[in-house]
Structures are given as C-alpha cells and as structure tokens.
C-alpha cells in the first residue's frame, strides 16, 4: 500500500501476496477472536477457548482470501506497469476493477461486472484519499504569504484624507 516502500516488479507480486496474507490473518484473527469470544458459552475459560478456536479456524481462510486478492491485484498492476511504462493511480484503479472481476468469475458475468465496479470504486476512493492526504500534509510546509509592510502606507495618509482638496478651486469658480 505504501507506494515508495514497495518492491519493484516482479518481486512486488510475492511481497504484496505475503503482506496481504498477514494483514488478513491478523485483522481477521482480531475480528474472529472477538466474535468467538462473544458466541462462546458462559465462563471466562470457555470464552477464551472459543476465541482461540475461532481464530485458529477462520484466520487462515481470511488470510488466504486476502493473499489471493493481493496476488491477482499485483500481477495485474505489474502487467499494466510493463505495458504502459508508467506508474500512476490509474494502474491501481484498473487493477482493482480487474481483480474484482476475476475473483468473482465463478459466479457468472453479472457478478463479475458488479465486483469489478466495486473493486474499481474502492480503489478510486483509496487513491483519491491518499492523494488528498498527501496534499494536506504538504500544505503544512508551504511558505506563508509575505506580510505587506504597514509603514508603506504612511506617506499617503494625508493625500487620502484630504480628498484631493484644491484650496483655490471654489474661489476661482465664483470669480468666473
């Protein structure tokens, strides 16, 4: 996910697959642990045992799903980098859409289209928010506007306050 710490292709495929697997195992273990704890019978010992059992059962499955997603995503991403000779957010967005479509291919064309749209929209939001956060962080280091010196206006004070007065104007008009 952190773009500048990713390996170059094709090592990125293995790296992303492993990272996604760990993310799925740890995150899935976290949520499944809570779920197992809550669904277990009464008693702290039984609840902890239920939590551990749920983690052991579900964590590898969730990790496997994440690894599959990460691997397919990275393969498509590296292919796009190779063909386009460019690394930009569009690679990630297209990769998300293609990955969503591929991994739903067993469910038929309609499910593929739906999952592709979901994958594309999700990656668009991730990239968009990432760009937004980068801009926000960069804003904090921007130079401030230089202050306009207040002394610069001192010399024009009398000129402005007098209202362009000409002392002899009225008398001249009365004469003519």
């Amino acid at each position: 996910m952190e773009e500048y710490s990713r390996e170059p292709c094709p090592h990125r495929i293995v790296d992303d697959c492993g990272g996604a697997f760990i993310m799925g195992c740890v995150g899935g273990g976290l949520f499944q642990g809570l779920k197992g704890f809550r669904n277990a019978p009464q008693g702290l010992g039984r609840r902890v045992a239920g939590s551990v059992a749920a983690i052991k059962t579900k964590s590898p499955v969730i990790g496997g799903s994440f690894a599959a997603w990460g691997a397919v995503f990275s393969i498509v991403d590296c292919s796009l980098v190779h063909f386009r000779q460019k690394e930009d957010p569009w690679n990630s967005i297209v990769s998300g859409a293609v990955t969503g479509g591929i991994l739903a291919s067993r469910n038929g064309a309609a499910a593929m289209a739906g999952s592709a749209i979901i994958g594309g929209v999700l990656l668009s939001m991730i990239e968009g928010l990432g760009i937004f956060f980068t801009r926000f962080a960069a804003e904090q280091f921007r130079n401030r506007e230089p202050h306009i010196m207040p002394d610069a206006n001192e010399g024009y004070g009398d000129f402005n306050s007098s209202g362009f007065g000409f002392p002899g104007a009225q008398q001249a008009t009365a004469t003519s």
Partner: protein
Amino acid sequence: MPLPTSSFSQQGPTCFDKMKTGFIIGFCVGMASGAVFGGFSALRYGLRGRELINNVGKTMVQGGGTFGTFMAIGTGIRC
C-alpha cells in the same frame, strides 16, 4: 498510494504514527465506501427518511472501523 509523513523531524515518523495515519485513511475510505454501498442497498430496499439515515450511518461506521483496522495492520507490516 503514498502515505504522508506526519512530522518534519530528522528521525521521521514512528511506526505508531504511520499506523495512525493508515487507520485514518482506512477509516475515511471505509466511511466513503459504506456511504456508497450502504446507501445503494438501503435505497434498493426502499428505506426513506430517518430509517435510511440510521441504516447508512451504521454501515458507514462499520465500514470505517473494519477498513481502518485492516489498513492500520497493513501499514504496520510495512514499517
């Protein structure tokens, strides 16, 4: 997706700072996706008014929490 650095010091951000930033980004993405997909589902079921707002709001917070947690873990792996 580059993660912004949270400070300008010599040592750079700590692992925990990066994870917090990852959680914030993940939470925002989760909230946005919860709003889009939750709103779509709720409107398809015909929810309106307060029921719609409650349902979409709950979906947003759930999505934000889940996605934020996974993003934080993913960021922690990369430290």
